[in-house]
């Protein structure tokens, strides 16, 4: 019993750290990747004793973005505006962050692993209704931004909060419909099972990934997921040309950093969900429990522990790749107008999602689920 507890505690902490580090990766992309896309130099001022410079290396802005920025953030004055609801103002960033962080618990990051003679699923919490859990935490996440906007006693903040909650509720429907069609395809609410079913190949070559069965659902989940994390082109709640900073205008220091971290962590979560549902999760193509079986009949034997570790690496590489793609999207597209945002959500994604569900239902009844 105790070893179970320790193992799952380690899994949970590891997953939390992976999520937070992905958020850091996205933050770095935000600063330096955007500069690369814009053909700017980007953050390159801060350095530790000019160390890299003396060695003749270009300044990659790592000290800027990962050390100087956070230290500046957390040592700033923590300002609470006059007339604000002090309790809710302090609580809101954490209400926003908490649901995102606990969702990482149900993401399967690997197959199984044998520890001390017992087999463990590489998943911090092996829920058989994990999909419902994800939807519930995403649904509750709305309160953080909505309350942050309201408690600040500022009109721009309130407008940002209202925009954020309207947008998140609208796109939750499209997100839910995309997930429903995947649940129908695989016939399970268990994310570990969803990933298991994406193992193997068609015709011995093409990996059985969800994106090939449900390409429309992939696009829906991608779009709704980006909207859910309130990033460009869906960053209406914090559009600086209209609302200063939207729902976190009146935040400074650590609390503002918490709100920004929430957005980045949510983006990492969306990447993980996309990988889990559509890109085969921890499945490495042609890798099975016993080892690689390459097309053409070549076989390479790989030990059990190595297979587990390769699975974890595959999951991480895919997630980082999707995070990078989300970063590219963020610096490529311009922001929507508010009516365009709502039209896309309600008249574009929701009908497409419903259509996808109906077609999927028909195909599942006619041919059976992907089992």
């Amino acid at each position, binding site marked *: 019993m105790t070893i179970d507890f320790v193992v799952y505690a380690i899994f949970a902490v590891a997953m939390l750290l992976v999520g937070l580090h992905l958020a850091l990766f996205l933050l770095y992309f935000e600063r330096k990747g955007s500069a690369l896309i814009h053909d700017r130099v980007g953050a390159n001022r801060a350095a530790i004793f000019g160390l890299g410079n003396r060695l003749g290396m270009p300044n990659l802005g790592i000290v800027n973005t990962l050390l100087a920025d956070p230290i500046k953030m957390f040592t700033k004055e923590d300002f609470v505006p006059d007339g604000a609801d002090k309790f809710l103002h302090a609580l809101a960033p954490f209400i926003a962050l908490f649901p995102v962080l606990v969702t990482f618990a149900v993401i399967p990051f690997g197959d199984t692993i044998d520890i001390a003679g017992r087999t463990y699923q590489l998943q911090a919490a092996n829920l058989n*209704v994990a999909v419902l859990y994800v*939807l*519930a935490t995403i649904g509750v996440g709305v309160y953080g931004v909505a309350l942050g906007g309201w408690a600040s006693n500022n009109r721009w903040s309130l407008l940002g909060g209202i925009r954020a909650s309207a947008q998140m509720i609208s796109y939750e429907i499209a997100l839910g419909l995309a997930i429903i069609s995947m649940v129908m395809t695989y016939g399970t609410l268990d994310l570990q099972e969803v990933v298991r079913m994406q193992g193997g190949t068609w015709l011995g070559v093409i990996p059985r990934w969800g994106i090939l069965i449900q390409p429309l659902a992939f696009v829906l989940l991608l779009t709704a997921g980006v909207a859910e994390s309130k990033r460009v082109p869906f960053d209406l709640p914090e559009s600086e040309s209209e609302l200063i900073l939207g729902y976190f205008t009146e935040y400074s220091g650590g609390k503002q950093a918490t709100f920004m971290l929430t957005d980045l962590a949510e983006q990492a979560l969306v990447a993980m969900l996309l990988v889990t549902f559509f890109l085969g999760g921890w499945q490495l193509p042609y890798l099975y429990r016993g080892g690689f079986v390459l097309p053409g009949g070549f076989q390479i034997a790989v030990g059990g522990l190595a297979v587990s570790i390769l699975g974890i690496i595959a999951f991480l590489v895919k997630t980082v790749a999707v995070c990078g793609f989300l970063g590219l999207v963020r610096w490529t597209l311009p922001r929507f107008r508010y009516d365009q945002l709502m039209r896309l959500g309600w008249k574009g994604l929701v009908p497409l999602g419903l259509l996808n569900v109906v077609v999927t239902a028909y195909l599942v009844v006619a041919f059976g689920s992907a089992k």
Partner: protein
Amino acid sequence: MPAWLFIFFGALAIVAAFGVIVQRNPVHCLLSLVLTLLVIAVLFIAEGAVVVGFLQAIIYAGAIMVIFLFVVWLLNIPGTPAPGGQLAPKFIGAIAASALGSMLFAFFSEPEAAVRAGAMAADYGSISSLARVLFADYLIAFEVTSVLLLAAMVGAVALARPPKNLDAKRDAEEPRRDEAAAG
């Protein structure tokens, strides 16, 4: 769920529910209600009704209460209403509360209530058992309910839409601006 945890969550639910009716600021009341709903979802999950618990969190806490929050903001209800208020709602509320309390008391004071609650199927509360009840045993009732909800939704849209002939009426009543300028 261990007993102490159940007592903790039960107490939290009761405190949060009191917060709904005791607090002055409508947003604070609403947040207390959200907390109550979430804690009750946790209790549902602990009792094995996992799907019902998560659905409560998704639908009530995650969607309906956010709409309530919107309504509170848009109606711009003053933060601290005057003390007192109407007597009739309090009177009716007291009667309803005592009726509910006596029903619960009557249910739980029966000696076989605990036995009846304990005799459940092995897959009680699982999504497949819930789906079997909804989509096989009570399919017609379930589908009729969905039609009812659809009718309510269409009605709400119809009510919210401005009358179709509003523009025509305004044009007829007011002389058009260019005509007025010309005349």
